[in-house]
């Protein structure tokens, strides 16, 4: 089942009189349950593509369908709903809310989905999944980078989204921790069947993906499966 369809997507940024073509005619299809990396040098358009798939940026032209929904015709409120219901986000800088505890951070998407019952149970079980059940009352500032990223993974996963997007999730972590995080993501992908799309510079991290899509100057320069 196609979970992401990107057709002939271009994205231009206008900086004064110069136009930056961040994406040019990108075609991409992602099947449900894939564990996919987007690779490419700096400035090649990885973040831009992830933002467009994540419905937080609109393409200049083209077509984008998430879970069969044509998202380009939706209002900003409707897009917010799509993100809350179907998409999980993991950020390079973790982006936990500093005033909330670990458990409260993980609870946030459930609150957005207006779930009433069993929130505490879901939060607890997902924290166990990422190995942080003992830290639920801690504040993000009391955790290491790797632990914070685990909390972020738990937050992305707790609402059972169809797809999780991670823009350079390991770039702020040392190599070992980064590999651990990637392996955790991969394990969750296999266990729950959640689709993961992440971007990275790191060749070794890239090697953990089942499929690597290579970008160069805003264009697809390669698409290979490693399994």
């Amino acid at each position, binding site marked *: 089942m196609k979970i992401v369809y990107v057709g002939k997507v271009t994205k231009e940024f206008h900086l004064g009189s110069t136009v930056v073509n961040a994406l040019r005619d990108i075609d991409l299809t992602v099947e449900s349950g894939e564990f996919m990396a987007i690779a490419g040098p700096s400035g090649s358009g990885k973040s831009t593509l992830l933002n467009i798939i994540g419905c937080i940026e609109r393409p200049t032209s083209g077509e984008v369908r998430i879970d069969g929904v044509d998202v380009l015709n939706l209002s900003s*409120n409707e897009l*917010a709903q799509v993100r*809350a*219901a179907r998409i999980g986000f993991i950020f390079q800088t973790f*982006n936990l809310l*500093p*005033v909330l505890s670990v458990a409260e951070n993980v609870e946030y998407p459930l609150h957005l989905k207006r779930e009433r019952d069993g929130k505490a149970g879901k939060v607890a079980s997902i924290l166990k999944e990422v190995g942080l059940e003992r830290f639920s009352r801690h504040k993000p500032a009391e955790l290491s980078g790797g632990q914070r990223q685990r909390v972020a993974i738990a937050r992305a996963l707790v609402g059972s989204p169809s797809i999780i997007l991670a823009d350079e999730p390991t770039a702020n972590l040392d190599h070992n921790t980064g590999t651990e995080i990637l392996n955790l993501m991969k394990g969750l992908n296999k266990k729950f069947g959640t689709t993961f799309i992440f971007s990275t510079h790191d060749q070794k991290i890239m090697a953990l993906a089942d499929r690597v899509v290579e970008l160069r100057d805003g264009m697809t320069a390669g698409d290979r499966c490693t399994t």
Partner: protein
Amino acid sequence: MYNLRLAFKNIFRNRTRSLITLGAIAFGCISLIIAGGFMEDIFFKLRESYIHSFLGHMQVYRKGFFEKGAARPFDFMISDPVAVEKRILSVEHVRLVAPRLEFSGLLSTGDTTVSFIGQGISPHEEKELSNFLFISSGENLSGGDPYGIILGKGLARSINAKPGDPLVILTNTKGGAINALDVTVKGVFYTASKAFDDRAVRLPIGTAQKLLHTDDVQTLVVLLDRTDNTGAVMKNLSAMFKKDGLDLEIKPWYELADFYNKTVALYKRQFMVLKIIIAIVVVLSVFNTMNMSVLERVGEVGTIMALGTKKRTVVALFITEGLILGAIGGIIGLAGGYLLASVISYVGIPMPPPPGSTASWTAQVKVVPGVFLYAFVLAIATSAVSSFYPAFKASRLEIAEALRHNI
């Protein structure tokens, strides 16, 4: 609930700044409570002073007296005043009814003669109506001595009279003839009104009636148990007069106390200026706080919007923070205001004599629920209003752009 908790936690992440903002809001509330309570105390004391120094809560006249009585004081008199008094006394909340008969005449020591305004009064009833009439020497009128009179301080000084001095009163009777009466000075008084003290003579009403050759009175002054009952009693009295076919009219204290009304209007205008200044202080400080807090949290706003928080929820979150600041600041302000009002009232504020008066007095800060409510509502409303723009600004952030602020 979740959002409320989040807003609460966000407020206290920058403790110093929030405390300063709370301080500004509380300060605003306290100022309003103190200034408003002080003003209400002045109004209250001024009002009670007027009512109890001679106005009463209302006055009853023959129809026409109020309009034309100044020129023709004896053309509109209440006949059979004792019966009318009894009828008025039967109404609920009426504490007493005091008859008055005013006239003008000349007062002579033999050497000097001055004009005066005479008030024939009933000493017993009038005692209750003269809480703010003070005897500076000698003694007050009593029922016992029909030919004893008391003089206002200024009048006594102008003819150099002191208690015990014999005087002669000269006046026209109701019919127009001239009549004279030998009297004795029993005492000298002063009130809150210097103009009154300069011209006034008080004597027993029976003596005045004899002097004027009449059994009637001009005014029946009605005193109630509480000022708040004025409206209700007026209504009942009018209905009763109508039913009894009595040709009488009633004037409440607030129509008689011109100076009071002007004072109230003046103070209220000044208070309005204060309210505006305080509102501006609160708006600026809350605006500054909320604006800073939006600027600091651009990255976080990007994060929660990426996760699927709607724009209007972002607005609501920041406005909730403003509201909580306003509510906490307001509560601190109410408590602080109450405390300070109590302390100030305990100590008392020495006040100079009001214009036209010789008596200085002590002001307090009245605890008025209306003023407290006003201060609290102002704190919350201004806080909410001033967080609106920063909140709106936060909701307009581009998500991808805002996310770049997370470092």
